[in-house]
């Protein structure tokens, strides 16, 4: 472990803001890249299920 204490770890030798901001942006980018397609998937499946029901009720 390269740090003495947890405050030391958070401070990052005075560069805490830069380091943590970078990792936070990375987390946001990763999460958004997973959320976006999963949300689209839900939408597509809902839409297609509705379309199928409509088609079947017409027959």
């Amino acid at each position: 472990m390269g740090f003495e204490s947890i405050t030391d770890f958070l401070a990052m030798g005075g560069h805490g803001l830069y380091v943590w901001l970078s990792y936070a942006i990375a987390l946001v980018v990763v999460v958004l890249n997973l959320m976006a397609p999963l949300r689209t998937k839900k939408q597509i499946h809902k839409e297609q299920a509705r379309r199928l029901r409509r088609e079947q009720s017409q027959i």
Partner: protein
Amino acid sequence: MADKKWMPRWFYQLASPRWCYDITGKLLPLFAWAAALLLLGGTAWALAFAPADYQQGNSFRIIYIHVPSAILAQSCYMLMAIAGAVGLIWKMKVADMVAKCCAPIGASIAVLALATGAIWGKPTWGAWWVWDARLTSMLILLFLYFGVMALNSAIENQTTAAQSTAVLSLVGLVNIPIIKYSVEWWNTLHQPATFTLTERPAMPFEMWMPLLIMVLGFYCFFAVTVMLRLRNEIVTRERRSGWVKDLIQTQFR
């Protein structure tokens, strides 16, 4: 002789949307686990256990996000251009879909590389941004992604849209070697490549090993998000076919 097959069998299987949907369904959990383990382990190692740089101190830990995202942003562009070319040459629909899925992911990763670069630049160079060859060519990469996305959504017909974006991304491919060699061709503030195939890294093992883990983790994460988008694209475009109808009916009652 017209149907002579001179590419390996998997190449033709790849052309089948259904086969692609099935295989990505099997690969997704593998890559998701690999990405989660590599990224979590890599981040812990990078933040807590890797030694601080003797000149830059702890701000150097930004490298573990910056370098993987910069590498991935370029790899993603190359995949997009190659998939576009395959789509142009073999008229392969799945390749067109892959190319389309790459653009928004690549754009977000390029933003990440630029943002972390700026944040790292502030304590290291004293400036958020300089109009340096490496930074400028990376910004052009981001604009190329935006251009591809805009062009793709501007054309109604899917085939025409795929063809035009493929041509645009192939032309933009010239930017990739410019990014790579920008640190050698021009005087620059940016440091040269961390990893090369021919030489040992200039850093100690405890510094480059977590970096390698993060790069692999980013690639696995990229595979996951591309496959998620690709599966959506396949279901949307193949919605009239029997197997997608069956899929919808069995999954959503």
